[in-house]
């Protein structure tokens, strides 16, 4: 029973990791923007949920709000930085500081409460409904994204740009539009993740900082821009973390997970899945 419970906990941790990393597979993985402000997009989603006090309604609204903010950021700043990924790190670190302080000034430094709907409180057989909800939400997001990328025209363009920007550009794809869209979706997904986080964790100005390193690690372990990779990495690391924590403690679990990722990158330096590139660097 304890083991079964722990397995479920691992899966649900994986789902959380997946949700927070999904947006990043777009902005970091596909566009190469080391977006340190990703955590603050989670924050935007979380505060959206706080303002609406309705988690379900907040999901689309947070997607829109965070997405719009992402678009603004892309238009104002990030588009000047394509091809300079390391610079985006510092740029977005600045953005992250500002957004955090804004949150502090608008909503106050203390945590705020988000009331979960009645049907998400409680659980079944020791499995909390909120966790099941997050699991389903994560899988739904993955399904939606892969449908979008494979079935929809815009999504296919996105993949084309990602694989070969110049070829896509000369084939008539408006790469700039695609960039905007990619950033919008990536940020929007972070907003959705932020809403989900309100079910399980604190909602305060520091929220983003708690998740940002984990999110990056998932994307790295999964392979840049690889949806499959991110899904597998998130669940494997979630389950691994939960069991190590169960047998030892939370601090050690984090260290072990890091060690495993470094060891894993010895075997697959580019993460689980690789997009081939012919560039000589």
């Amino acid at each position, binding site marked *: 029973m304890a083991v079964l419970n722990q397995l479920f906990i691992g899966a649900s941790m994986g789902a959380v990791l997946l949700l927070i990393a999904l947006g990043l597979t777009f902005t970091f993985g596909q566009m190469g923007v080391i977006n340190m402000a990703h955590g603050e997009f989670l924050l935007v989603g979380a505060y959206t949920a706080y303002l609406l006090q309705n988690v379900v309604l907040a999901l689309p609204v947070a997607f829109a709000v965070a997405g719009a903010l992402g678009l603004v950021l892309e238009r104002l700043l990030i588009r000047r930085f394509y091809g300079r990924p*390391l610079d985006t790190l510092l740029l977005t670190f600045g953005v992250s500081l500002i957004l955090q302080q804004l949150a502090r000034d608008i909503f106050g430094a203390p945590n705020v409460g988000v009331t979960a709907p009645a049907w998400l409180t409680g659980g079944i057989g020791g499995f909390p409904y909120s966790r099941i909800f997050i699991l389903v939400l994560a899988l739904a997001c993955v399904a939606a994204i892969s449908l979008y990328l494979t079935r929809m025209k815009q999504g296919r363009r996105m993949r084309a740009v990602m694989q070969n920007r110049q070829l896509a550009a000369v084939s008539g794809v408006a790469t700039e539009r695609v960039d905007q869209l990619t950033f919008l979706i990536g940020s929007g997904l972070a907003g959705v993740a932020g809403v989900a986080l309100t079910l399980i964790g604190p909602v305060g100005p520091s929220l983003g900082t708690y998740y940002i390193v984990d999110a990056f690690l998932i994307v790295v372990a999964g392979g840049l821009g690889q949806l499959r990779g991110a899904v597998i990495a998130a669940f494997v690391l979630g389950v691994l973390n939960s069991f190590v924590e169960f047998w030892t403690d939370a601090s050690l679990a984090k260290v072990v997970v890091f060690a495993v990722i470094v060891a894993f990158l010895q075997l697959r330096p580019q993460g689980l899945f690789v997009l081939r590139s012919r*560039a000589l660097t």
Partner: protein
Amino acid sequence: MTHSKSFVGTTTSFFLLAGLLLLAAPALLPAFRLELLAKWLCYAIVAVGIHLAWGRGGMLTLGQGVFFGLGGYAMGMHLKLTDAGPGQLPDFMVWSGVETLPALWAPFRNPAFALAMVVVLPTVVAILLGTLVFRQRVRGAYFAVLSQALAAAFVILLVGQQGLTGGTNGLTNVQFFFGLDLYDPAQKRIVYYLVVGALGLVFLAAWQLSRSRLGRLLVAIRDGEDRVRFLGYDPAVVKTVVYAVSAATAGIAGALFVPVVGILGPADLGVVPSLEMLVAVAIGGRFSLGGAIGGAVLYNYASTGLSETFPSGWTYLQGAMFIAVMLWAPRGLAGLFSSGWSWIGGFRERRFPGSGGLSSTPASLPEPKAASASAPAQATSSTTSSASEPAPASGPAPSSARGEVPA
């Protein structure tokens, strides 16, 4: 070497001036400010290492705090033991209920051992991580993220071992430094001079390294790692060596930080402090040694100054500062000044972008360019071409760099 004799003169006189100012500072500043300056200079020492690893070698090291911490703890452990006196336990161990000195601590009573560890510990960790990571050609953003995660893991480890490390509190209340009473401003001044001396030495070492063939090789690796491989060099070795040098530098800075500030805790070594060390260098100019040092001092000066003037709102300014520098001065203030300089000296030829001569500063491109005119189209890369490597540009114009980010 294209610089003229008169230029060498200018260079030297500038550094002499800066050195003199630093040496004269104790006479000009009250003890409290001098202490701050000494702390900033510790960060300046870290900056020298970051300049080497990042500015020269293209290794975006987000975990410099780890090495800073290793050096600092090695020193701090020794100082806590001497403060406690023979046979006594450091204060935090008493609070944590530790009754016998942990075996890990015992050798640190020996000053020679502790001093050696200041350099050895960071070097060994850097070599280990570097060997693992660089051999597998993990680089760019991957390396950045991994080094950041290293900082996160390191802090968790430190915090979790309270009896061994002092936990979140870290090592506090260090009073004596090899016989110097740190509570006495006059004796503390000696520590300041030590910091200045260390900075001078580290500076000279970095200068020599940059001038040497290894320095050239490092730039070559930054701009075209694969190409260097086909010149018969193993970039992994060179990168690991330089990474270790930068780690040792950070270790020295951390060791000096302890007597200067009197405290060292995980809060100074984690993800955010490590990022700040990097940001300071970016602001000053990562391609330039002087820029990196100046950036570290300036950034920490500003952060102290701003937080004194606007205690509740200085985060905005800090954030805005990063954005402004990245937008308008991606090569940092050093780059800005150098453009200003050449603009003033209008007689200077308006150089073609990318032709920074022997300068460590690419004249116009913020990110080091790939060495190639364009990538060999028929080569299927077997290497980690990651997102953060500079994209191969088809010409020197910055705009062409756009969009070739291999996903």
